[in-house]
Each structure stands twice: as structure tokens, then as C-alpha cells.
């Protein structure tokens, strides 16, 4: 009985009204299904009663996609089982099928420790698992900074991380999905099996019901992108559901693809006395030909950026907060930092690439000695701590300011631009922040020209100015051919930006597409489409 699963909202469940974006919503009821069948029965009931449903994973999103504004909150954190394993006969690749509530941190532990609960698996799956245990170490490449993210959440916002520079976003590692639609029907999607004809698509539910739809006609930006529906001519239709902000159906089973873990992983943080030199270094390690420089063949898997303000915040926290004492001293002349990770299989090859990095640093105007090289896990952990400490410090600062002024929330961008626009975009951020006199810190995935600009307002006036800047940037980034959300998803907070990016007409097409799967517009209402547009 579905009814038993639906509980009235009460104080006990208050935490389920918010997420990491620090937005707070409301709901009348909540459920914690454990199986696809339970999800289906709840959705069916809600659909009949016309009650909006908001789906949640581990609520670590930054765009409030999991925050309910009305109706029912469906929390999938108890759908946390790994269901199966298989190995491709031809390629030897390993695949695991998981429920959406599995956390990335747990998945990583299970993969590295080869500790899966296999008691309920089929004999075939168990046999594949035995092969997995004997095989060289494997890994799941997507690495969002927030490792307590759930796999369902990662699929629905097409999550990325530092290593996506080389490996790409989560999209490339999703091989199959089982999705429950708002009317309780289930769809099984396997990569390579269902394709669009041009921009027209048809899918059949597991009971044979046919759903026909038209994909939006826009061209997606040629950047890292998590803004709106994935739409391309003749596309694989599984891609429509990845990065759809949960608006088309509820992801209940996910088949992920693993890769063999490289034998050697090294990290290098390089410091520069000018931002300009750091950006030059980024272009060199991307393999671009710059005047007067060599062309490099280094292939880093990530390239991360930290600006002077971010380093300054870290210096201060290191002095004042013992939790950050283990960070190495950052000399005052270090103005910008770039973290690069290298994956490889032999020591010799890795050493050569490291020496090439040194050359690139010098040709960009930096010094080989202004680097931190991590070749052991301990040192890699140190560099990782450094990288994670910056957003953490900024969140702490925001929380302090929020105590004084409730209105203040985190203002962090997630926009990416094409390669050519890297320097001009940085210059735009720097100039406009300076003009407005706002405190900020910039860091992020510079390899993909994808930076998180975080504004730190002191009062309501600055907060308002920051929001204005943010809107302004959405338009300017779009004009440069960029994406308003590159990895966090659109959720509720960035719906306005999506309209700026794609315009009314395309938003209309997206709404039509959603209607094919959710005619009453009940599922994850407010995600992608701003509330004022809901009734159009």
C-alpha cells in the first residue's frame, strides 16, 4: 500500500525542507521509498490527486532542485543498494547497477575496498563480481567536490568535478537508467538502444505505452554544460534524462561504467605572481600553441584555479582557525594558484610529464620552485585539503554574515565559456567586481573555462548588488557562447538564468517536452522553469 509510505510533514522532518544551497521550502507530506515499485505507487497516487512531488537525494545540490516548495517530498536516501554487477565480454569493462540514494563516498569505498553486499544478487552478477575482485583496481571517474552527493542527484544535474577536464562529466559513465514517470509507468533506457530521429523522439514504457515528443531546437553551448535538456539531432535518448533536473521522471536504477584505475596519480600546485601568467600556463598545458612557447603534450586530467582573494582567505583562516593549520604556508608573493593532476602508468613517463609541466610554468612566466608536487597519497591528500578548504572557508564566512543578516545567502556562479573567451571572461569578472566594490573569491575548473565566482556580501545593499552582477553575467556569458550552469544544474535558483540563456521560445519547447512525460506538471515543479511560468 502506497499510503503507508506517505507521512504527514512534521517538525521531525524539517531538515528535508532545505539543501546545501541554503534555501528553505515547505511540504505537506514526505516519503522514503526503498524500491522502484514503491516510487511508482507513490507517484501514481500523487498524480491522481494532482499533488506536486519534489524528489530528493542527499540534498547536497547548490541550485535548490531538491527543496520542495509545496506538496510532497520524496526522499530517495533509503534507496541505497547496489543491485548488480556485470562485465562486458568484449571490452572487459565493469558495470554496476545502483539505486539513486547510493552516495558517491560510499560507492568509492565499495569500489576501492571491493566491499559490495552481494547476497541478493543473481549468480551471473556474483560471477561478474568475482571477476571484478580479481581484476586490477577500477574507479568511477566523476569527482564532484561534494562526495556526499547521491548518484541520483549526480545523474540529474549531470555532475562534474576537477577530473571532468579529461574524463568528461557523469553523462559519459551512465550506461542505463530505469526511470519512473509521474503516472507510475517505468521506462528502461540503455545507451545505444533508443535514438531520436532528428529532433523527434518516441519512447515506450515497460508496459508498452508510447510517448512521443519533440526535442528543443536550440544548439547547446560548446562548453561544459548542465543547463537545461540535452538536445541534439539523432541523439541517444538516455542523454535526455541525464541533466534533466529531475523534471521528466524519477531515476530509480542507474548503471554506471568503471575504468581501470591508473597506476600512478600525481598532483602539482603551481603558484604565480600574476593571474595573467597563470592563465597562460593553463593554455600551455591544454596543448595550445602560444607565440614564443613550445607546444606541450602533458594531458593533465584536471586544471583547477584559485585567485588571489581565495588564497588570501585561506591565509587568514590558517592563522585564525586551527582546523586549517595543516595547510602549508602560502608565501605572500603567491597571487594565483593552478592545481593540475596527472594520471599515468609508469614512473618514467610521469616524471617526463612533470618536467614538461616545469617547462610550461617557466614559459608562462612562473618558476619551477614555486610548486608543490604530490607524489604520495599523503601529499595528494594535502593538496586536496587545500582545494576543498577554500569553498569551506567561504561557506563559513557566508554563514557568519547570514547570522547578522538573514537575507544574505551564498552567491556563487557556475558558468563556463568557450576556450577563446577565458581571459576576457576573467577580466570581466575582475573589473565588474572591482567597480561594485564587492568582496569575492574565484576558483574552479579553469581547464574548462569554468569558474565559480563567489560574492561575499556584507549587507543587504551588497547582496542586492551581487545579485544584479550575477544576472548581468548570465547575459554576458550567454553572448560569449557560454553556459549559465556548467555542473550544478539549474534547479530552482538558476531558472531565470536559463531563460536568459535560451530565450522564451526555447523555454516553451522545453516545457512542451516536459508535458509529454508529466502532463500535469507535477514532478519537481520549479526546476528549470521559474514558478511564474508554471501555468503558461
Amino acid at each position, binding site marked *: 500500500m502506497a499510503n503507508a509510505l506517505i507521512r504527514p510533514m512534521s517538525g*521531525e522532518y524539517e531538515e528535508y525542507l532545505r539543501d546545501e544551497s541554503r534555501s528553505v521550502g515547505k511540504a505537506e507530506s514526505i516519503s*522514503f521509498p526503498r524500491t522502484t515499485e514503491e516510487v511508482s505507487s507513490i507517484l501514481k497516487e500523487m498524480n491522481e490527486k494532482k499533488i506536486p512531488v519534489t524528489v530528493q537525494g542527499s540534498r547536497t545540490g547548490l541550485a535548490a532542485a531538491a527543496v520542495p516548495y509545496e506538496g510532497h517530498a520524496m526522499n530517495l536516501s*533509503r534507496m541505497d543498494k547496489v543491485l548488480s554487477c556485470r562485465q562486458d565480454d568484449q571490452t572487459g569493462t565493469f558495470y554496476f547497477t545502483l539505486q539513486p540514494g547510493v552516495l558517491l563516498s560510499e560507492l568509492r569505498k565499495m569500489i576501492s*575496498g571491493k566491499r559490495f553486499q552481494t547476497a541478493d544478487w543473481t549468480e551471473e552478477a556474483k560471477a561478474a563480481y568475482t571477476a571484478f575482485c580479481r581484476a*586490477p*583496481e577500477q574507479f568511477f571517474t566523476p569527482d564532484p567536490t561534494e562526495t556526499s552527493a547521491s548518484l541520483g542527484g549526480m545523474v540529474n544535474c549531470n555532475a562534474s568535478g576537477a577530473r571532468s577536464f579529461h574524463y568528461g562529466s557523469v553523462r559519459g559513465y551512465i550506461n542505463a537508467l530505469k526511470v519512473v514517470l509521474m503516472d507510475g509507468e517505468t521506462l528502461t533506457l540503455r545507451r545505444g538502444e533508443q535514438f531520436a530521429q532528428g529532433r523527434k523522439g518516441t519512447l515506450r514504457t515497460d508496459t508498452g505505452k508510447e510517448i512521443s515528443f519533440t526535442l528543443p531546437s536550440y544548439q547547446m553551448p560548446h562548453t561544459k554544460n548542465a543547463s537545461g535538456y540535452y538536445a541534439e539531432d539523432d541523439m541517444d535518448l538516455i542523454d535526455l534524462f541525464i541533466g534533466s533536473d529531475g523534471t521528466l521522471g524519477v531515476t530509480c536504477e542507474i548503471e554506471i561504467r568503471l575504468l581501470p584505475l591508473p*597506476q*600512478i596519480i600525481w598532483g*602539482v600546485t*603551481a603558484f604565480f605572481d600574476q593571474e595573467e601568467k597563470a592563465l597562460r600556463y593553463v593554455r600551455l598545458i591544454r596543448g595550445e600553441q602560444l607565440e614564443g612557447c613550445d607546444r606541450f603534450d602533458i594531458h593533465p586530467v584536471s586544471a583547477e584555479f584559485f585567485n588571489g582573494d581565495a588564497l588570501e582567505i585561506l591565509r587568514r583562516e590558517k592563522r585564525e582557525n586551527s582546523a586549517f593549520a*595543516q595547510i*602549508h604556508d602560502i608565501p605572500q608573493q603567491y597571487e594565483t594558484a593552478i592545481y593540475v593532476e596527472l594520471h599515468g602508468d609508469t*614512473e618514467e613517463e610521469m*616524471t617526463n610529464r*612533470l*618536467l614538461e*609541466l*616545469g617547462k610550461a*610554468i617557466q614559459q608562462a612566466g612562473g*618558476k*619551477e*620552485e*614555486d*610548486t*608543490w*608536487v*604530490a*607524489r*604520495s*597519497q*599523503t*601529499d595528494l591528500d*594535502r*593538496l586536496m585539503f587545500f582545494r576543498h578548504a577554500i569553498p569551506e572557508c567561504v561557506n563559513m564566512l557566508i554563514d557568519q554574515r547570514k547570522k547578522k543578516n538573514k537575507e544574505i545567502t551564498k552567491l556563487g556562479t557556475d558558468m563556463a565559456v568557450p576556450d577563446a573567451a577565458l581571459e576576457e571572461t576573467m577580466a570581466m569578472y575582475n573589473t565588474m567586481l572591482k567597480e561594485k566594490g564587492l568582496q569575492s573569491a574565484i576558483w574552479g575548473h579553469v581547464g574548462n573555462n569554468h569558474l565559480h565566482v563567489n560574492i561575499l556580501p556584507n549587507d543587504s545593499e551588497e547582496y542586492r548588488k551581487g545579485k544584479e552582477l550575477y544576472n548581468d553575467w548570465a547575459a554576458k556569458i550567454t553572448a560569449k557562447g557560454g553556459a549559465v550552469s556548467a555542473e550544478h544544474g539549474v534547479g530552482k535558483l538558476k531558472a531565470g538564468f536559463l531563460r536568459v540563456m535560451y530565450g522564451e521560445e526555447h523555454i516553451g519547447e522545453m516545457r512542451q517536452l516536459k508535458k509529454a512525460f508529466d502532463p500535469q506538471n507535477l514532478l519537481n515543479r520549479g526546476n528549470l522553469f521559474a514558478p511564474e511560468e508554471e501555468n503558461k
Partner: protein
Amino acid sequence: MKIIVCIKQVPSTNQVKLDPETKTIIRDGRQSVINPFDTYAIEEAVQLKEKLGGKVTALSMGIPATQRILREAMSQGVDEALLLSDRAFAGADTLATAYTLALGARHIGDFDLIVCGRMATDGDTAQIGPELAEDLGVPHVTNVSEILEASDKELLCRKVTDYGTQVVRMKLPGVITVAKDINMPRMASIRGVRESLEAPFTMLGAADTGADPARIGLKGSPTQVVRTFTPEKTVECQFLQGDAKEAAGALCRLLKEEHLTGEEA
């Protein structure tokens, strides 16, 4: 100041898996690393050199591949390295190891200070530093958490004991083993790595050091490892699922089942 820093190559993980038949460590493809405690020894030696001038030599006994971690030490400021490597050294316990390292120290010669990590993460004996000092006939201080004063004549250091700290003055030459809170080991720079590739490295065998065959390797070891095993897990941990109410209910049931509630059965 002429400083020797002793380092050991250990498996990179503390979750070592053992082959159930041979009882040897299963290498999982991950690399070996410098014993984490020795990284503090390297940093302290390099800091002393930077303050007082002189030279730091890294010393290790191990398989030829140990060259890699010695070069790593050289990328962090160590000037040169000596590796004692010979099949005849294999199977050494702490006494034979200390004897062998003492031969190495004598070969380097004329040292003021030897710095060791407090212990190795694979053997956990913490015996090498003191045994090495005894073999060389010099004083030693273990578990040093801070060097308060240093010259090439003597060292004033703070040592951690089970009951607090002691401040000890030691005449040099001598040996110290360092605790892990003594410093924050630096990370190598690319320049350091590049220079380490060409830094002076010497490898010597038993005959080169004039070792007494009866005092090295398995033969020179009065103690032997009879069996290595992973301790059996005796405590089971159970996670209670559900919301607060459900979990509390489950906990109550469990406590009652185990007769831990203080109620009469």
C-alpha cells in the same frame, strides 16, 4: 653540520592484505612510500642544514628499488643518498638492521647527527634509532618533538614521554628519533624533483661495507618472524536503519535482547 637521515620504504597503505598461504604482503599495485614518520626526520634534517649549513645524506637498507624513495628525499632538500642493498642483508631483524645501518653511517663518516623517524609503520618496533646509537657508541634521544637549540657541538631538544615532556641536552655526535608533531614536511617542487634525478646516489653491498657475515641478514638476526596474520575482527558493528523513532525502537529491542537495559530478565 653533517647530518644523516635514515629512511625506510614501507607499503603505501596500512590496510595490508596478506597472502593466506605464504603470509607475505600482497602488493596491490600501489607503490611503496617513505615511512611516514621518516618524512618528519627528513624535514627536520633539512631545516637544521638550512639553519646551520652543511649537508644531509639519506641512508637506507633495502632492495634496489628503494632508490626511488631516496630520490624522493633528495627532491625535498636532502643532498645525497646511500643505499645498502645486498641479498645477504635480507631477512634482517632490528639488531641486524641497526648493525648494517651503522656500517653505512661509518662509511659516510664524520657525521654530527643522525635523525630517524620514531618508528616504521610496517614493523612498529621503534628500536632502530636506539640500537643504531648503541652500535655507533653515541648518545641518543627518542621521540623528539622540538629542537630548542642546535649547534654542531650539542643539541637541546624536547622529547615526549608517556607522562609529559622532558628537555634534554645531548652532546654530538648523536642520534635522535623524531615525533610526528615536530614539523610539517615540505612538498617537493618541480625543481627539486628535477635536481633529485641527477643528485649523487651510491649503492653498496655487504662486501663494500666490510660487513661481518654473521651479523647481517637472517643469520645476524636473533629474532625471527614466525607468523604474520591479520587480527580477526571480534567486534561487530551494526547500523540501525530508519528515522529516529524506528532506530530508537530497534536499539531498545537490541539492548533488551542482550540484557543490557538493567531490567531483570
